[in-house]
């Protein structure tokens, strides 16, 4: 991905210079190689600080919600997954297509910073891809590891290595097709447990929750004008943290994105205390697929699965 940096610089400089966009959202270098951070460019001079590598995980299109009030045209760099997130915002009529200029970025996978840091807590210089393997090149030498094991979970089952639509594509399209089939094995494993075991499992997860709302704030499906957790009246959720409030939060969050979740896993990636939020989202995605025949890859749908029905839906309630 790094090799596209110069093309990105040229492109963004041009877009800013000819006022195609008022500002552009991409990445800049962070504290280390494995943590690039979002970058808001307002002038062409800023492009010198652009950064691109295969740790650029952030979905930048969520930031578009911060600019609804104005009339700026916002340029945004979008991988396939980010584009699905943008499609979510467009489908939900939160963002106008005309106010976004999408620079598409073909992508064959983003590496999971946490996993890489287990090998290299610090001092990683770069990541070199070699077929099924990847070389983690650090100050203290190279480590050759299986590529699949170090990718973000979403990248394994990613159906969109190339963004579905864009105003401009960076570089050539790459070969498409997921590296692995989504088999929901982690969800199925949990379903096999005894109810009491599952209860203990989720209790432990929810008790750890800080209610920092990072999972909500990063989620492209959480795009309500006012979140139900932020209204004082009616009070859906108390400020106090107890297991029941934490569980209410997670249950509600999961239900509110049911059938709308794009499966990007950003919620889980940003969670500071490793709550497996995708195990909730995927459970719902799996059931929605099985019950209503809407597979995850088709979401966002024009009308969300819970906003419609079929007369022939399964009926087990009699």
């Amino acid at each position: 991905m790094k090799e596209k940096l110069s093309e990105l610089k040229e492109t963004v400089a041009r877009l800013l210079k000819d006022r195609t966009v008022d500002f552009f959202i991409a990445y800049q270098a962070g504290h280390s190689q494995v943590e690039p951070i979002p970058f808001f460019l307002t002038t062409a001079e800023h492009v010198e600080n652009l950064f691109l590598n295969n740790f650029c995980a952030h979905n930048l299109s969520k930031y578009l919600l911060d600019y609804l009030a104005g009339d700026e045209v916002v340029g945004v760099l979008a991988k396939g997954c980010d584009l699905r997130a943008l499609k979510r915002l467009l489908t939900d009529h939160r963002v106008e297509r005309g106010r976004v200029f999408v620079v598409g970025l073909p992508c064959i996978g983003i590496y999971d910073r946490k996993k890489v840091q287990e090998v290299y807590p610090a001092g990683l210089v770069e990541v070199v891809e070699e077929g099924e393997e990847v070389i983690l090149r650090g100050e203290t030498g190279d480590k050759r590891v299986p590529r699949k094991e170090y990718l973000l979970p979403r990248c394994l089952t990613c159906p969109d290595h190339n963004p579905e639509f864009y105003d401009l594509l960076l570089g050539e399209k790459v070969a498409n097709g997921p590296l692995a089939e989504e088999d929901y094995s982690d969800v199925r494993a949990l379903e096999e447990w005894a109810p009491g075991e599952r209860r203990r499992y989720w209790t432990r997860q929810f008790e750890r929750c800080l209610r920092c709302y990072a999972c909500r704030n990063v989620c492209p499906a959480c795009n309500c004008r006012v979140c139900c957790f932020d209204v004082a009246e009616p009070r859906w959720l108390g400020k106090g943290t107890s297991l029941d409030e934490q569980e209410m939060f997670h249950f509600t969050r999961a239900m509110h994105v049911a059938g709308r979740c794009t499966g990007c896993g950003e919620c889980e990636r940003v969670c500071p205390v490793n709550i497996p939020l995708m195990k909730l989202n995927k459970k719902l995605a799996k059931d929605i697929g099985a019950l209503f025949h809407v597979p995850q890859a088709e979401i966002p749908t024009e009308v969300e699965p819970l906003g419609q029905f079929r007369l022939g839906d399964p009926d087990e309630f009699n």
Partner: protein
Amino acid sequence: MSVERAGTGVSTAGWEPKIIGFCCNWCSYAGADLAGTSRIPYPCNIRIIRVPCSGRVNPQFVLRAFQRGADGVLVAGCHPGDCHYSTGNYFTRRRFLLVKRLLEYLGIEPRRFQVRWISGSEGQKFADVVAEITEQVKALGPAKMDKMRDVM
């Protein structure tokens, strides 16, 4: 991080389950009424909350009911096709197919949460459903997700 709680045990001696029933105004509530006027006996464990349509029942209501001390929750609406608002209960059906599975996934015993279609003429069915749920929940014992873990 959670608030510290005292580990109070729950005594089951003389315990009777509390069951919350969300009943749609047009069918199930009328069904309950009919059970009453027809003098059909059913357990008094159920506390009915009347809602305009089963589609009004927010999944959060169900979880909150459990958290605030319910041992069982029933959502009852018109039979599919009979909704007073034409289609409300079709949405209910989709929604609660998921909710039921999600609650079970979170470790809540599935028989504690039930959805039933009960029409205004089905007084007997209402009584039977309430009796059946009460029996099942009694067999399960008090719900563990109770006030113990409340912020109170």
